């Protein structure tokens, strides 16, 4: 897979506050991001011949009809939920490498006017599986991941100071970003004064709830050379996960060594091997930040520090744009810029590698993007320029 495909187009709607995208429909937001992405690539919408989704995807039949795409040759989605956001690019690459499609869209979008993601687990239908957690009052992912955070604190001495550093470092990046939802600098006092939603997670440990859509266009590396934008090379895009992680937060029976983790360790190992790079080679990481504690656990699972040392790693200033060895979530992340099911991270990695990011990392050559820690599949992506 290495270097055979590239991201050549990028499109996004504004990041709206929850509910503020009305009266646009979700399909409309998706379509707008796709049209923006093909225009950015110097392509026409008629050139699209494939869709590679995650989290169940969107209605390809409807999109094809309404956008006027003549023929679709590939349409598929990764299973699972937000875990697949980075891996959808790998799915697109697989379609292109196998000759099934040439110009593939990956798109993520959400609209939370009717249903907040923050309380989504309470809205799940009654199933035999859900009956084993619904009574406990875990009504949102933030409650569930708080259990992992507490265990990490217990095992490794991680503290809320460490979570605060993640929140503040990422907020500092949002300050300069005109697309960001929250641009006021966050102080330590701001963090500790925030309401406690699911101890040890306070308000600022939670990601935003936005409406919006982000799309990218993936094509062959060969074709990418003739298009408008500087190609962003796909070095590796993998998804999957180990049995030990499995249904993760909906199961809570992960072995002790992987309970307080992001579930990404297996995918991370394969991702680096496929890309032929190591953690020290990564110039910037766009890490799925639905919760600050999960940023720390992903930094461990992706080998930027040893297991259990994620708290100390962030406390050292390592993830800061200014002075850090690994600038993380340079757009302000899902914590402060915008939440579009992980696709904002793909967008920011592409902008960093094009050299057009608001908070440009000097000489950024390799970027890591992660999908959401959730049920398997989880996923990762390494891009280069």
């Amino acid at each position, binding site marked *: 897979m290495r270097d055979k495909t590239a991201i050549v187009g990028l499109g996004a709607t504004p990041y709206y506050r929850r509910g503020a995208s009305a009266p646009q429909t979700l399909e409309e937001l998706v379509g707008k991001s796709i049209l923006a992405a093909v225009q950015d690539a110097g392509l026409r919408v008629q050139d699209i011949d494939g869709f590679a989704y995650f989290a169940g995807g969107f209605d390809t039949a409807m999109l094809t009809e309404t956008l006027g795409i003549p023929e679709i040759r590939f349409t598929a989605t990764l299973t699972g939920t937000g875990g697949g956001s980075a891996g959808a690019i790998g799915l697109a690459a697989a379609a292109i490498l196998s000759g099934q499609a040439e110009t593939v869209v990956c798109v993520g979008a959400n609209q939370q006017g009717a249903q*907040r993601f*923050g*309380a989504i687990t*309470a809205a799940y239908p*009654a*199933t*035999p*599986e*859900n*009956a*084993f*957690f*619904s*009574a*406990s*009052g*875990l*009504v*949102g992912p*933030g*409650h569930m991941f*708080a*259990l*992992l955070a*507490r*265990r990490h604190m*217990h095992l490794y001495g991680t503290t809320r100071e460490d979570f605060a550093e993640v929140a503040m470092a990422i907020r500092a990046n949002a300050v300069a970003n005109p697309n960001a939802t929250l641009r006021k600098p966050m102080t330590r006092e701001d963090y500790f004064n925030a*309401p*406690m*939603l*699911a*101890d*040890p*997670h306070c308000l600022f440990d939670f990601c935003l709830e936005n409406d919006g859509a982000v799309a990218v266009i993936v094509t062959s590396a060969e074709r990418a050379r003739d298009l408008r934008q500087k190609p962003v090379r796909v070095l590796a895009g993998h998804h999957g996960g180990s*049995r030990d992680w499995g249904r993760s937060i909906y*199961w*809570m*029976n992960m072995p002790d060594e992987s*309970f307080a983790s992001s579930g990404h360790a297996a995918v991370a190992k394969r991702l680096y091997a496929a890309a032929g790079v190591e953690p020290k080679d990564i110039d910037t990481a766009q890490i799925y930040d639905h919760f600050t504690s999960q940023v720390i656990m992903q930094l461990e699972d992706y080998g930027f520090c040893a297991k259990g040392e994620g708290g100390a790693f962030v406390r050292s200033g390592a993830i800061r744009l200014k002075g850090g060895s690994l600038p993380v979530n340079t757009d302000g992340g899902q914590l402060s810029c915008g939440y579009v099911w992980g696709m904002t991270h793909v967008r920011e990695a592409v902008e960093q590698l094009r050299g057009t990011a608001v908070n440009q990392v000097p000489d950024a050559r390799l970027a890591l993007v992660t999908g959401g820690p959730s049920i398997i599949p989880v996923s990762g992506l390494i891009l280069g320029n």
Partner: protein
Amino acid sequence: MAIARRPPPELFKLSTNTWTQPFWDATARHELVAAQCTDCGHFRMPPTPFCPCCQSQRITWTPLSGRGEVYSYTVVARAIMPGMNAHLPYVPAVITLEGAGGIRLISNVVDVAVADIRVGMPVQVVWDDVDGQGVAVPRFVPVTAG
């Protein structure tokens, strides 16, 4: 000092299948049981159709002591959906069950000062009967002396 309460009862939605029904049948009798592989002895919860160790489908429903310890917990003290306020604070917890090979149950710690709850705290099951559904929900309180 805030005492750990119970989450809104309407959040519990009972649904069962062949593999989970025996667990809920036992709750009606206020018995905590766990799925154990009849062939290799591996415990698994929630119950599923296959043993992950030997792929057997034979299950023995092993009665447990009802004791365990707090593996992790969170404190929900703020409503994120309507109707929650009257039930705050409550404490969702993961409980390692005694005598069941380290398997865990997602439940709540109740009827104790929130500030006294710790990872590793010994707990024992108490039962909340569910109105009209013929089952009970297991929750946990600190182990009392004797």
